[in-house]
């Protein structure tokens, strides 16, 4: 009953949308008057939904948020740059900034180097595509799902006689003779355990791009170096690495952009408690939990400002690669 209702709503939505596209095609499809081009009409009709949509759903709200970031918590009084001052001076918020810095430096570096290492190791190996699929698979899993998988890895049981650890990390620690730890409590180390989840998800992306770059290197180059007596490690450092450098930079910056925007991991694993919040999560907490729209908007704008230079650099690198 409820099932059919939801699916009916979906079909209705699709129908409304189909009518819109049909309208666009009908307007654009009218035969042009003899001797005149229909270019203009087609261009306007084809572009209208996308351009209007972007204006209303992206550009207007973005401008509005920048404006709101100069007002107080309920948006009634103008405070100038006061909210930004809050972000850069309140101790809690400084921890958020510190964590964000940790995330944006560590997760691209770790994901890219692991991805590169793995791509080199399995390159032309017998089970290459299977081996790659294993690392690649986390990309299909939501950050929420990945967070739950890893929360289970970090699961902690009090260290009493007769109590078994059910989290694999603590069990390994016990097998090695250590005492179980609450991995997600102790700051700043807990951030590292959250970052590990991001690395786990993104290494597959890094590996895919870098593996393609490695395969683009003519085999003769490595061969020649080997013939001249270079070791595998030297070939990697002197031949492979310089040639895949542009791809490495693209991967680093792409992962950095994603890392800045991701809030799901922190939200699901700690909710930002225990000093683990990052800008993207703090935006959500301030806006929808503390109902401080001013600081929330300022955090969103800060996120924008942080992402901007990375994206511009990334775009330049991509153009150079092409």
């Amino acid at each position, binding site marked *: 009953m409820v099932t059919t209702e939801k699916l009916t709503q979906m079909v209705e939505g699709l129908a409304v949308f189909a009518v819109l596209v049909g309208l666009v095609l009908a307007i654009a499809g009218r035969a042009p008057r003899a001797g005149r081009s229909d270019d203009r009409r087609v261009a306007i009709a*084809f572009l209208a939904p996308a351009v209007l949509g972007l204006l209303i759903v992206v550009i207007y*709200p973005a401008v509005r948020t920048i404006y709101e970031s100069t007002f107080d918590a309920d948006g009634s009084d103008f405070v100038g740059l006061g909210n930004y001052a809050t972000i850069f001076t309140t101790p809690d918020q400084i921890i958020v900034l510190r964590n964000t810095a940790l995330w944006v430096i560590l997760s691209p570096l770790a994901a890219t180097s692991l991805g590169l290492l793995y791509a080199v190791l399995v390159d032309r190996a017998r089970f290459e595509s299977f081996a790659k699929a294993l690392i690649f698979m986390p990309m299909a899993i939501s950050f929420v799902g990945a967070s739950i998988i890893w929360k289970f890895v970090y699961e902690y049981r009090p260290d009493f006689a007769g109590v078994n650890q059910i989290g694999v990390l603590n069990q390994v620690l016990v097998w090695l003779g250590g005492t179980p730890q609450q991995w997600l409590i102790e700051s700043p180390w807990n951030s590292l355990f959250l970052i590990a989840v991001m690395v786990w998800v993104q290494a597959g992306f890094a590996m895919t791009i870098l593996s393609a770059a490695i395969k683009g290197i003519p085999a003769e180059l490595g061969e020649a170096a080997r013939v001249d007596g270079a070791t595998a490690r030297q070939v990697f450092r002197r031949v492979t690495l310089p040639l895949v450098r542009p791809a490495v930079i693209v991967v680093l910056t792409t992962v950095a952009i994603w890392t800045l925007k991701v809030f799901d991991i922190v939200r699901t694993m700690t909710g930002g408690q225990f000093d683990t919040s990052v800008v993207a999560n703090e935006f959500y907490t301030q806006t929808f939990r503390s109902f401080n729209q001013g600081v929330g908007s300022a955090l969103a704008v800060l996120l924008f400002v942080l992402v*901007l230079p990375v994206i511009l650099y990334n775009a330049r690198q991509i153009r150079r690669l092409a």
Partner: protein
Amino acid sequence: MSAAAARLSTVADALNLRARRSRRRLSSPWASLTAILIAALWTLPTFGLLATSFRPQGDIQSSGWWAVFTEPRFTLDNYREVLQAQNSGSSLFDAFLNSVAITVPSVLAPLSLAALAAYVFAWIEFRGRDLLFVIVFALQIVPVQVTLVPLLQLYVKLDLAGTFWPIWISHAIFSLPLGVFLLHNFMKDIPRDLLEAARVDGATHVQVFLRVVLPLLAPALAAYAIFQFLWVWNDLLVALTFANTSETNPITVALANLAGNYGTSWYLLSAAAFVSMLVPLVVFLALQRYFVRGLLAGSVKG
């Protein structure tokens, strides 16, 4: 032609032979060990939770998942319970249906809008076209977060809150900059002569778009559809903001709520997590080829 092909295949054979020889020389035991170690680190956490989801509740509490190797006991009770459980008024099954109802329009809509726009940017000349294209492309830099609050207010004002419309519209439009860019890249590669020939024969733009361009674009559309599907199905932030009622919330929101409210009920969490992962994993594994191609086109081409 066949001579050239034969020559090519000989060269390919030679390269393959060389590749195989160099493989033997490159692979050391340490390299294999490292690769296996990384592969284990990347698969064991998922496997652990998967195994847990099939274990009886009592077993999960008292021993780690690795115990399944010594005392294998399996059950489907966790899945049964989580699909019927009444968490916040709706079962995970409802949330699953919401995910379907959200995802299908959120993929099809931007796919067609982006294809229409990309066609114009690739094939119709007009003043200011390149500037407009750069602006659309550049909107990729706007993080979703910057738009959420004013957009939510807008949806409330339009009386759309509580329906699927806010999340459909948001997902559809947010993905246009990337979609237009991706499809435009592929579209530029279609030989100009092909389209011009059709135009000279009297076909309108709409006919060219539907009969010539769309069929040629199928692989690119597939790549973009998979991206968008994974993005929408796995999204949490947009759903929390626009589809956070029990009638509309997708499975990611239900899962996040479950993790928040029943943080240590691993028998429920593990099963719920795998219900949510099933569809994207199947789609992903089945269509991996297109996904990889899209990934390479998006970040290496450009």
